[in-house]
């Protein structure tokens, strides 16, 4: 436990010395502020053009941020040889990985909190309407998105040999999950019988954190009906309290699965070495 805290503390310190963290902080703050100010005559509540473009911004920026910072941190351990050193100590792999994860989470969540804090204060000062529920929903789902992609980042950091590889894989994963996702799915599902499309689409959606977080936010913002009659039951269910609970469970399953796998790989490598 104390090992884990030590690793986390070190991670936080290193994280805030990393210029990447600040460039993302500035990018996120500037973008979210300008989005708000462009639509300055409109209040921000429910699912509308303003919240829609904010959601897109979050989906573009936050996964990329988590993937970069997370995977770089792990590959740095390998490149700088500190993991080789640490593995000779009686430090558990689990403590190490969890420490890494928590430390990086603190760094990322701080960046997000800063951005949202600034956004909230500026909206109030400018005299705009920002519904508190919508604000909190955005905040919590930005955090969720970051934590999920951080787990993915640990995967990348594990599999990549060095920083350049991590960068390449990160961009690839980001492009695949955020931008190319519909294109690929439409292309693949087009070959399948019509009746398979919807169930497979739903299953694939569960596998892509960017996609299920986006849909969850859209539905929670009251925009579920835009998904059409096909998903009417899903929308009704997710909109209810049990939907939020299930989302939380899905979130946990995702995190636990990724972290367990990553730990297992590191453990195996360690024992081989």
């Amino acid at each position, binding site marked *: 436990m104390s090992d884990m805290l030590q690793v986390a503390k070190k991670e936080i310190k290193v994280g805030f010395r990393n210029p990447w963290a600040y460039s993302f902080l500035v990018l996120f703050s500037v973008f979210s502020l300008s989005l708000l100010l462009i639509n300055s005559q409109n209040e921000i509540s429910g699912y509308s053009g303003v919240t829609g473009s904010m959601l897109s911004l979050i989906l573009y920026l936050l996964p990329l941020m988590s993937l970069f910072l997370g995977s770089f941190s792990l590959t740095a351990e390998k490149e700088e040889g500190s993991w080789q050193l640490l593995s000779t100590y009686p430090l558990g792999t689990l403590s190490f990985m969890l420490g890494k994860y928590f430390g990086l989470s603190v760094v990322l969540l701080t960046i997000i909190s800063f951005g949202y804090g600034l956004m909230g204060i500026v909206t109030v000062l400018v005299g705009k309407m920002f519904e508190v529920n919508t604000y909190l929903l955005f905040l919590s789902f930005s955090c969720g998105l970051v934590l999920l992609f951080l787990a993915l980042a640990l995967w990348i950091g594990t599999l990549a040999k060095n920083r350049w590889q991590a960068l390449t894989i990160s961009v690839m994963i980001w492009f695949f999950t955020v931008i190319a996702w519909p294109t690929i799915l439409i292309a693949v599902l087009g070959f399948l*019988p*019509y*009746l*398979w499309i919807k*169930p*497979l689409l*739903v*299953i694939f959606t569960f596998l892509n954190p960017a996609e299920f977080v986006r849909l969850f936010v859209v539905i929670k913002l009251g925009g579920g009906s835009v998904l059409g*009659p096909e998903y*009417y039951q*899903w929308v009704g*269910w997710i909109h209810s309290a*049990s939907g939020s*609970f*299930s989302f939380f*469970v*899905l979130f946990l399953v995702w995190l636990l699965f990724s972290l367990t796998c990553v730990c297992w790989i590191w453990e195996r490598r360690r024992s081989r070495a």
Partner: protein
Amino acid sequence: MKKGFVALSFILVLIVVAGCGKKTYQPQAINEDVDVCVICNMQVKDDAFATQIVTKEGKSLKFDDIGCMNEWKSQNGTDEIGMAYVRDYNDKEWIEYEKAAYVYDASIRTPMAYGLVSFKDKKSAEQFIQEQSVGQLLSSEDLANHKWEQSKGMMDMDMHMHDDGDAHGNSHEHDENRHEDSTGH
């Protein structure tokens, strides 16, 4: 959690079902909350007038009146149709379009006023004609040459059912107007 699993296993079952039963078509149940007529955008009521086309690829298209289904056929052709379904007037059971018997009269009220009702067999259709003392018995082959006229002004039949019930002497008048309308159309 449980619900999620139920949903997931449901999907898996769906996939299996979809994979196995490829060439048999199944009509879907009507869900009044979300089903709207493909042609006229009106809510499809879960009643005897609802019709349905299941395409060859398994897509289900629902209509609130057999006339709207006919309209779809004339727009899109019949090549893609796997099976068309109508409902029995009496017990709302889905029946295949070809196997059903039909009764037409301009005064029969249907949601989009095409004046056609469907029955699972000739016998119940004849019985209906006897009870109503109007109507012309048609088979699905006869429908190919049917004129598909809408009696303007008597849409959404159930909304005017009470005219029949209140017997204030004007329901007869309505009937007459209807005949005029349908001929003038």
